[in-house]
C-alpha cells in the first residue's frame, strides 16, 4: 500500500510482469524529488525491472541446468564432453537438506523467541536505562506535555486507585 502511494506521488512508471512478458506504462518521473528519496523508495523503476528480468532468466536457466544434470545419465553427459560434474547424490541431498533446514528454522525461531522473552522477575520489564536517565522538562501551561516514561507506581495509582473509574470501564480499556 505504501508503494502505491509513493508511485502515485512521484509519478514513477508503473510496471507489470505477466508470465515472462512485461510492458511498462511510462509516466513523467518526478525529478524534483531528492536523489536519496528516489533511490531508497520501493517504487518500481526501469533499472529494477532489468534486474528482475535478469534474475528471472538466470533462475530459469539454473533450474533447467539442474534438471539436465539430475536426469541425464552420466554416459550421455560424458559423450558430450561435459565430464566435471558433482555426484548425482547431491541432486537429491541438497533439496532434502534445504527442506529440513526450513522446518528446523520454524522450530528454532520459536524457541529463540521464547528464550529471549524476559522472565517475570526481570527489571527490564519495569524500567531501563533510558527511562532512568531521562530529563524532566518543565510543565508549561496550555501546551502538550513532553513525552516521558511515567513510573509504574504512578500508572498503577492512576489505573487502580482513582475513584472516577468503574472497574468495568477500566478493564475494557486495558
Amino acid at each position, binding site marked *: 500500500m505504501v508503494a502505491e502511494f509513493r508511485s502515485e506521488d512521484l509519478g514513477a512508471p508503473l510496471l507489470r510482469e505477466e508470465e515472462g512478458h512485461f510492458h511498462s506504462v511510462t509516466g513523467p518521473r518526478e525529478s524534483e524529488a531528492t536523489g536519496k528519496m528516489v533511490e531508497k523508495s520501493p517504487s518500481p523503476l526501469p533499472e529494477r525491472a532489468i534486474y528482475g528480468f535478469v534474475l528471472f532468466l538466470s533462475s530459469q536457466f539454473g533450474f533447467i541446468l539442474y534438471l539436465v544434470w539430475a536426469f541425464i545419465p552420466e554416459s550421455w553427459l560424458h559423450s558430450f564432453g561435459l565430464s566435471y560434474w558433482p555426484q548425482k547424490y547431491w541432486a537429491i541431498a541438497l533439496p532434502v537438506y534445504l527442506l529440513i533446514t526450513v522446518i528446523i528454522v520454524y522450530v528454532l525461531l520459536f524457541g529463540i523467541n*521464547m528464550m529471549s*522473552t*524476559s522472565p*517475570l*522477575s*526481570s*527489571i527490564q*520489564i*519495569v*524500567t531501563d536505562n533510558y527511562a*532512568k536517565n531521562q530529563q524532566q522538562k518543565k510543565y508549561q501551561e496550555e501546551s502538550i506535555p513532553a513525552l516521558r516514561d511515567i513510573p*509504574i*507506581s504512578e500508572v*498503577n*495509582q492512576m*489505573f*487502580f*486507585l482513582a475513584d472516577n473509574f468503574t*472497574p468495568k470501564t477500566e*478493564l475494557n480499556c*486495558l
Partner: protein
Amino acid sequence: MEDERSFSDICGGRLALQRRYYSPFCREFCVSCPRLSLRSLTAVTCTVWLAAYGLFTLCENSMILSAAIFITLLGLLGYLHFVKIDQETLLIIDSLGIQMTSSYASGKENTTFIEMGKVKDIVINEAIYMQKVIYYLCILLKDPLEPHKISQVVPVFQSAKPRLDCLIEVYKSCQEVLTHQKATSTNP
C-alpha cells in the same frame, strides 16, 4: 476480620482468595489453588502404564512394568513435594515487612521475608508470559542507599497466577498499608 471470595486464574481454573486483617495495618492474603484432581492423576497413570505395556509387548522384558510402577510412584511423590503448590500467602505488616509463603501439597512450606526498608512499592505489572500477556503483582525493591532506583522485582503469587480482579483487591489493600507506612515512617 476474615473473608473469602472466589476468583479465577489466567487459565480459567478456580482460585479462592482469603483475606485476614489481624490489625488495621497488618493483613494477610491467602490464594489457594485447586487440589490435584483425580481425573488428571488417573489420566497420567494410565498413559504411563499403557506406554510401559506397549514397550513390554515389544521387548518381552517384565522389568519394564515394575519400572513403570516405580516411576509413577516416585513421580507422584516428587510432583507433590516439589511442584504442586496448594496455597500462597502474602503477609504485610506495615512497620516490619512483607512475608511470602508457599505451601506445597506434601506439607512443605517455603517462606521469604522482605523487610520494609527494602520495599519501594507493590505494583501490578503486565508482561509477556509464554504466548499470553498477563497481569501479575510484584514487589519493587530498592537499595536503601539509592532510594529512587528499583533494584529488584519480586513477583508474587507465581504459581497461582490470579487474574486482574483478584490482583486489584490485593493491590488496593496493600497500597493502604504502604501509604500509611510511608506517612508514619521517620525516614525522609
